[in-house]
């Protein structure tokens, strides 16, 4: 498994921490799934006042790696400010960088993203950029100092799965050594398995688990799917073909005469 800025993860499941019915259910989802990374978004208001620390303490108690994110930031400046607060609150160089460019689809503003990634990398951050499957943007993010890429599967919270399998496959082939994470858009475990089968290193999701009727059960389902997809990817799957190929040999069969 490729490592993330020198950190090897136990598994390829990263879970968000927003929108759960309660912190107790959130903790249960992490326990049942064994997710290796918890992402947590920081409101700038609670960062300044440190008034969110009760909730952050609960997140720290999960015992996973913590990946703070700049969710909901619409400009480079906002994202950079939020990243600095996150570094202080969670004492980590990791930052999931989101710069939102479009309100309805929550698509990343890739121009602002590259700029913010450069600023934060120069400042010592280890940036996990939320991007699209565009190869040129991906290249520029790597040039800016990112060592991980997080292309979307589909718009955030849409549950549509992998919208552009061709593009995601091309990205994997184009950057064979870069850790790649599918971030956003997953609704079902089968979609997570598909991402891992494509050779992705991890998936990051939140809504699919948090808004399920039974979040802990769904989290465990995702963990199993991630594992299944990962095993499939490393096992060198068969190539699909157009015609049937008998799985039992024809020659040498016993026959009655």
């Amino acid at each position, binding site marked *: 498994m490729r490592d993330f800025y020198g950190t090897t993860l136990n598994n390829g499941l990263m879970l968000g921490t927003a929108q759960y*019915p*309660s*912190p*107790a*259910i959130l*903790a249960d989802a992490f326990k049942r799934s064994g997710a290796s990374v918890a992402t947590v978004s920081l*409101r700038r*208001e*609670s960062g300044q*006042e440190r*008034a*969110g620390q*009760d*909730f952050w303490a*609960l997140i720290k108690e999960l015992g996973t790696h913590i990946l703070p994110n700049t969710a909901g930031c619409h400009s480079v400046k906002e994202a950079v400010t939020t990243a600095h607060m996150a570094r202080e609150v969670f004492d980590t160089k990791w930052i999931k960088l989101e710069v939102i460019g479009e309100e309805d689809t929550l698509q990343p503003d890739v121009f602002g993203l590259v700029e913010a990634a450069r600023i934060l990398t120069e400042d010592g951050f280890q940036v996990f950029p939320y991007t699209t499957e565009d190869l040129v943007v991906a290249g520029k993010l790597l040039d800016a100092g990112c060592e991980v890429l997080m292309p979307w599967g589909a718009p955030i*919270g849409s549950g549509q799965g992998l919208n552009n399998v061709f593009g995601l496959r091309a990205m994997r082939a184009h950057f064979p050594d870069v850790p790649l994470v599918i971030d956003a858009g997953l609704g079902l475990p089968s979609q997570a398995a598909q991402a891992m089968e494509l050779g992705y290193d991890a998936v990051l999701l939140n809504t699919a688990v948090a*808004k399920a*009727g039974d979040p802990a059960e769904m989290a465990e389902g995702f963990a199993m799917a991630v594992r299944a997809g990962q095993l499939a990817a490393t096992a060198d799957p068969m190539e699909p073909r157009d015609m049937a190929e008998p799985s039992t040999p024809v020659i040498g069969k016993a026959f009655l005469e």
Partner: protein
Amino acid sequence: MSDITIIGGGVAGLCVARELRDRGAELRVIDRYDGIGPHQCSWWAGGMLAPFCEGESAEEPVIRLGQEAAGWWQKNTGCVTQNGSLVLASKRDSADLTRFARRTSNLREVSGNEIAALEPDLGARYTRGLFFESEAHLSPRKALETLRMRLVADGVKFETAEADPETVSKKGKTIDCRGFSARDSLPDLRGVKGEMLLLSCPEVTLNRPIRLLHPRIPLYIVPRGDGIFMLGATMIESSATSHVTARSLLELLSAAYALSPAFGEAEVLEIGVDARPAFPDNLPRIREDGNVITANGLYRHGFLLAPALARMVAELVFDNTRPEVLDEAAA
């Protein structure tokens, strides 16, 4: 039984006082402030008595215990309006309505025509909704005032003072109902920030609370009568109560405007903010430690769950009945 002290005169303290008084206890209620007011979390409440709607995300005890609320408040304050509640979503968020219906009970799906009949002022804006006919709502401030007034009339003494449960309990049974102010003695209690608005908009009439589903900004609007509406409420994992952010105001007001553009002309009467006291599972707890009983963690369910919580406190005090929300681990 006599001489019980309740610390905290918000929704929890007053409901506990009512239940204990009904069992004949001699009571005093101590609060840092005199009377009902903005220092209390319940002052800013929505006042929806909607156990079935809450079931969308809350756990089973909320749905079951919450069903005691409407009858209790009607009996003890007479302030309850039983008109049901209505859940709506814009067309693009129709999937959320389907999910909401699947996860709740005691509702029926209503068409555009039925919505227009229930709430003529919403006109033909919505084509699909969910109607929870058995639910109710009240005006929190009026309900608290009435409850307090009747307690005074029944001989309950109210004192304005700082009080520490440990000191007070040396003189007798003490019920700690301080809400988030008890944070220092309850390390697993956290604040969940809520922001709300009071609007005056006489040209709009709504007959019942309306919930507008939205993936990012769910909103409810509760009619208070006389053209006044409560608009709520944000849910932010933060104990800050110092200010309302521009973003929250923007989100609340846009949602109200989406519900009916007439709210664009409303007068903003009040902007409120407070932190709801909550335990990690967002369910209330009763703890007993010597002479002190703690009743806390009502989260966003103050008016909905305080009657059941108060009943359980009374059963513990008078019958030594173990309440289902007793938290032994922490005692």
